[in-house]
């Protein structure tokens, strides 16, 4: 059965915020996340006829946004930057809850591959097989990243429940 490709407006409306949250969790700066996601959508729009026919247009946009963000030399400073700038950048909103600040800070302390695996697994709802496919590594490697990432997060955040597995 033939299915029409999604329109740019549909994909934008459905996924902009979700992608921004994922990038925010990884890089720790919501404004920065929003900017790179917008740029990724602009690049998708410029070649939408092609991108819209991919099996996973959103995956393409996510990858572009991710690449844009990691190419910035300052990635290591984003969590600090977020904490410092939050009141002045968006002063009309309430500050984040302490738990969320702690979560972002704990994520920022993880090695990049563990952080990425956790974000894709928990925020993008990807199963281990898909995370492995996206990262170009074996499933066992992703399981190891998730295990280590969860353990480090548990220590950082003083989580008390027993160690669980991936979904």
């Amino acid at each position, binding site marked *: 059965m033939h299915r029409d490709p999604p329109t*740019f*407006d549909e994909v*934008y*409306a459905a996924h*902009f*915020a*979700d992608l*921004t*949250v994922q990038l*925010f*969790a990884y890089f720790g*700066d*919501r*404004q*920065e996340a*929003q*900017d790179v996601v*917008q740029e990724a*959508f*602009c690049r998708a*729009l*410029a070649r939408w006829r092609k991108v819209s026919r991919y099996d996973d247009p959103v995956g393409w946009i996510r990858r572009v946004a991710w690449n844009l963000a990691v190419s*910035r*030399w*300052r990635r*290591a*400073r*984003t969590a600090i*930057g977020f904490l410092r*700038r939050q*009141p*002045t*950048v*968006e*002063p*009309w*909103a*309430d500050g*984040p*809850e302490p*738990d*969320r600040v702690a*979560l*972002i800070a704990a994520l920022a302390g993880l090695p990049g591959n563990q952080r990425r695996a*956790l974000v894709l697994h*928990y*925020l993008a709802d990807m199963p281990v097989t898909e995370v492995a496919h996206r990262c170009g590594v074996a499933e066992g490697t992703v399981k190891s990243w998730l295990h280590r990432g*969860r353990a480090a*997060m*548990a220590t950082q*955040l003083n*989580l*008390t*429940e*027993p*160690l*669980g*597995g991936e979904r």
Partner: protein
Amino acid sequence: MTDQLERLFADLRSETMPRIVPPGVEAARGTVRRRRHRRTAVVTAGLAVLVAAGLGFGVPAHLTTSAPTPATLTNDERDALAAQAAERVGLTPDETLLGHSFGQAFHVTHQLVTGDYLVKMVCVGAQGHADVRVAGSVATLTCSATPAVVSVPLSVAEPDLVGRTDVLVDVRPDAVAEGRTAVAYLIEMGPGSQDRLRTAATDAIGTAGTAGEVSTLSDFIASSGGSGLTDATMGPGNYRLIAACVGAGYLTIAVGREEPGNPGFITEPVQTLGMSCSDGPLGTATPETVDFTMPKGTKATIVDTNTNLEARGQAGVAVRVVRR
């Protein structure tokens, strides 16, 4: 623990989603349209003059005598040098796109609004040189542990337009510097060009002194990306906000009541407005208008402007509030 972790991620998502204000599909279309119709403006850089004057530039790499070449640095060491280089030119990449610092050869294309700029650049590292090509002209930086910052003028000329022009910055360390140094540069718009954008935005919202006017704002969007005003005369009542943005990027405005006990902060905006900054011919920027009502108990009203990274250092904004 997984449940706890899942819950934390779910909370992060549910708390963050409502705070995200997408610039919108129209902003994306505007960006793509501009890129497809780039103007071929005249771009000149003043690098050659400064090369001739020898202001801070070293001897070209191929003329230097070779010294024993140390091992290349680790990524962390290069990142540390990049941070030092960034600090030397005043680059805070958290706040602007008009500069970069990196520990190896790189190139970046900037879309610059018409105007006069100063490009500050430096190479931090033990030895070697780096060629920095800006808009076709090349400067050779001498790398050292404590280098002086080299500043060169750059003119992106298109007198009757705000315009956007691609300017390529290409950084190439020589064989000695590659992997052992970091180059940073920062492009800053000159004060005259900043005034041009600010004035164009002010002109777009009309003459000052309009009947019922209660507050105005006219500003150049600096690298920190925001501006705003707190007006204690704006109590409860009905108002109209007229705003314009000229230059690059996207502007969002939030209006709200000052949070009790937290001066300068808004609890919940009563109104928001978003717009793309106009980069068309001078005098053609169209103002946006929005009405809002300040509720009972308002003691002071805040009009807060915020931009995306693209606008920072490249946009002028003007806002007028009148009573309805």
